[in-house]
């Protein structure tokens, strides 16, 4: 019997790109790299306009607190350093680099030359931090901090290859084409935690990936592959840990508190690359799909590449595009501009036409108390009740109904036959209930993928300054 959890939904999988190999994009003419692509404090740019930069060279430094350095993803000349609008209320500094197509690699990029068997935990954390690796599943929590926080406190390492969102096949293709990178990364992580076994969780719609990994020559004691029932949101840490171990993470606690830590498969591959070649995180696999895209597929993209170039590469009819979603259709973020750059958290780019959007439209009618939202909620909340309380403005009732433990998966909105915006209301309630003074480091680990929280947290800074 496959591992699974209670609740959840099974939307149309739409894994149209599962058989399309990963291809590297033709190098973009210029990239625009935001200084904050992770949860935590914004980086300070450490290059000037006119500087020549190499691929892999650090261009954004962490000055304080939690953060990941940012590296140049191509070689070329810095042409602009300016603020760009990032979300409704926030802007972020971005460095624009014009490509000189010389593909110079920074001299700082050096493979790890010591013996991998005697690697120390500190050394691993150091290299992961310098490589700027953040959770590539979409939550973009700095990986070094996750490792440092979990060392000595965990008994199980879980590698998340569930990829439960429709359309996205980035992890699937990675496991099929470069399973050795993922396994290499797992070996390094096991070393960091001094553990012997890691659990790899793969949904049963990716049986070929299971075979590809199992075919590698590694000690079967080291990696145990668990096949999960295909269901959304299986890739959520809480549901994944429950499916595999039967343990519930108490409200407001982190996976570490029950003795587990979860890493995304692509993050493992990035850790491996940081050791094998020394190349920091400068590119990622992005699934490009949607009804406007002529040749959908998974593309290896330098960070900072504008979405428009990526869509062009995939032969997209840009005149038809009405909506672009970065991430999966369940939790992804709709962007308003085709110039938005690819960042560390962009696992997919989906371009939909007006026609496709219309087919997803639903007329809002009265709640008929069908209880489907309760059955779908992976957190076993009462979405309908929270929705009603929020519409009435009764925030204290939202709190007693534990609106704050919503993982923002959107399952309730998906199933609602009355077409109500349940999860949208719950997320708003959650945002309003969040304590006013948010210290970035206290932000929960990668629980909610693509959370609405802006990448660069200016509000918390200013509020702290005021105090």
């Amino acid at each position, binding site marked *: 019997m496959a591992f699974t959890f209670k609740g959840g939904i099974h939307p149309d999988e739409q894994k149209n790109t599962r058989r399309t190999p990963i291809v590297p994009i033709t190098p973009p003419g210029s990239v625009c790299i935001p200084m904050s692509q992770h949860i935590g404090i914004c980086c300070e740019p450490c290059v000037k306009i006119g500087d020549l930069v190499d691929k892999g060279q650090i261009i954004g430094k962490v000055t304080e607190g939690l953060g990941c350095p940012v590296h140049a993803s191509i070689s070329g000349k810095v042409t602009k350093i300016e603020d760009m609008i990032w979300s409704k209320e926030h802007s972020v500094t971005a460095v624009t680099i014009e490509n000189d197509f010389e593909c110079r690699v920074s001299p700082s990029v050096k493979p790890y030359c010591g013996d991998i068997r005697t690697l120390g935990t500190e050394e691993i954390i150091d290299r992961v931090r310098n490589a700027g690796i953040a959770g590539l599943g979409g939550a973009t929590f700095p990986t070094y901090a996750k490792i440092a926080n979990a060392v000595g406190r965990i008994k199980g390492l879980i590698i998340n290859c569930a990829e439960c969102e429709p359309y996205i096949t980035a992890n699937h293709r990675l496991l099929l084409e470069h399973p050795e990178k993922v396994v290499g990364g797992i070996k390094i992580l096991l070393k960091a935690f001094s553990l012997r076994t890691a659990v790899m969780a793969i949904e049963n719609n990716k049986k070929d990936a299971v075979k590809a990994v199992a075919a590698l020559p590694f000690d079967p004691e080291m990696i145990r592959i668990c096949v999960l029932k295909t269901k959304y949101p299986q890739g959520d840490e809480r549901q994944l840990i429950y499916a595999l171990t039967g343990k519930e*993470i108490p409200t407001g606690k982190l996976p570490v508190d029950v003795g587990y830590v979860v890493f995304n498969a692509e993050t493992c591959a990035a850790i491996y690359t940081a050791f094998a070649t020394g190349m920091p995180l400068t590119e990622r696999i992005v699934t490009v799909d949607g009804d406007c895209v002529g040749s959908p597929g998974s593309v290896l993209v330098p960070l900072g590449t504008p979405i428009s170039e990526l869509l062009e590469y995939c032969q997209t009819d840009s005149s038809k595009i009405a909506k672009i979603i970065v991430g999966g259709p369940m939790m992804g973020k709709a962007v308003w501009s085709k110039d938005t750059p690819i960042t560390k958290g962009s696992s997919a780019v989906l371009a939909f036409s007006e026609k496709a*959007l219309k087919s997803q439209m639903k007329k809002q009618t009265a709640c008929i108390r069908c209880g489907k939202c309760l059955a779908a909620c992976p957190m076993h909340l009462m979405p309908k009740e929270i929705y009603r309380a929020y519409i009435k403005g009764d925030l204290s009732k939202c709190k007693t109904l534990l609106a704050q433990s919503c993982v923002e998966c959107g399952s309730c909105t998906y199933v609602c036959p009355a077409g109500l915006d349940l999860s949208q209301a719950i997320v708003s309630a959650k945002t309003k209930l969040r304590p006013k003074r948010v210290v970035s480091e206290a932000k929960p680990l990668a629980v909610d993928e693509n959370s609405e929280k802006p990448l660069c947290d200016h509000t918390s800074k200013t509020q702290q300054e005021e105090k």
Partner: protein
Amino acid sequence: MNEERKENTLLQVSSAPHIRSHDSTQTVMLDVIIALLPLLLWGCYIFGMRALTVTLITVFSSVIFELLFNLITKKTITVLDLSAVVTGLLLSYNLPHTIPFWMPVLGAFFAIVPVKMLLGGLGKNLVNPALAGRACLLLSFSSAMTVPPVLTRLDLFESYLPGDALSGSTPLYTVLSPAEDGSSISTELLFDMFIGNESGTIGEVSALLILLGFLYLLLRKVVSWHIPLSYLGTVAFITLLFPAEGVERFDVVYMLAHLFSGGLLLAAVFMATDYVTSPITPKGRIIFGIGCGLLTVIVRYCAGNEGASYAVLTMNLLVYFIDKITVPRPFGAALPKLKIKKESKPQ
């Protein structure tokens, strides 16, 4: 950069999720109608075409009353959600095919206007409209609501005079008042009840078709198993362990006769599972089903009458409280009981 952006057309933005299932209130109601239609066909076969006429009258009058209400109150037209059709169907299924034609119109009016629309329409009603309509007719015109004891097939428009119809001969009465000579219910009669070869209201006679409808609704995930199974299970449990006087314990035939006779199955599968008037929590649904079962058997034993509709109507009124006490424990939240224990220990 900003200038470039101005040149580009802005794209649509909205918060996640960006996809939705294809279920709507309309498709849900359509599924219920599909599950109900075989019962109508069987009703026409067994009672004659007059059953169809009665059903058409209730369905049309339900829809028209809702439409009129929408128009008079200048609210959105809601008839397209098909819930009025379901109410009409269920109401007619609870009526004898011999009823005078004007009565179903009255029943539909009561079900739609005071019970459903005046309280705010679909989703706001407290009790099942179809059952309320039936209860209204039963209290007002009990003789016309009496099911003729023998199977009478009637034409489309044939009027029926109740005359001196003797009560006590429909299968339910046979079950509720065991023969004086002590003979139990024959298996032939049980089989007739299962197939639906018996007298009764238009839609309640065929246990087989009701169960098939239930299966369809389960497969389409329109209803959950909780209410029907806990309801029927409770009735089965009581009739098996505590049968009425004169019947031996563990009489399976007696138990099955209870399940297949009267409106119990129809109520358990189609009335008690009405979304609006049943609890939304899984635990609450089980409590609701058990309550319905208990009340049904109590009415059957004590009043010698079919109690299913009154049982469901009574439990409908308790839904708010059942929902309140059965809030599920959120994932990862501590059990409220455990909390109390932990707090009391240090004291």
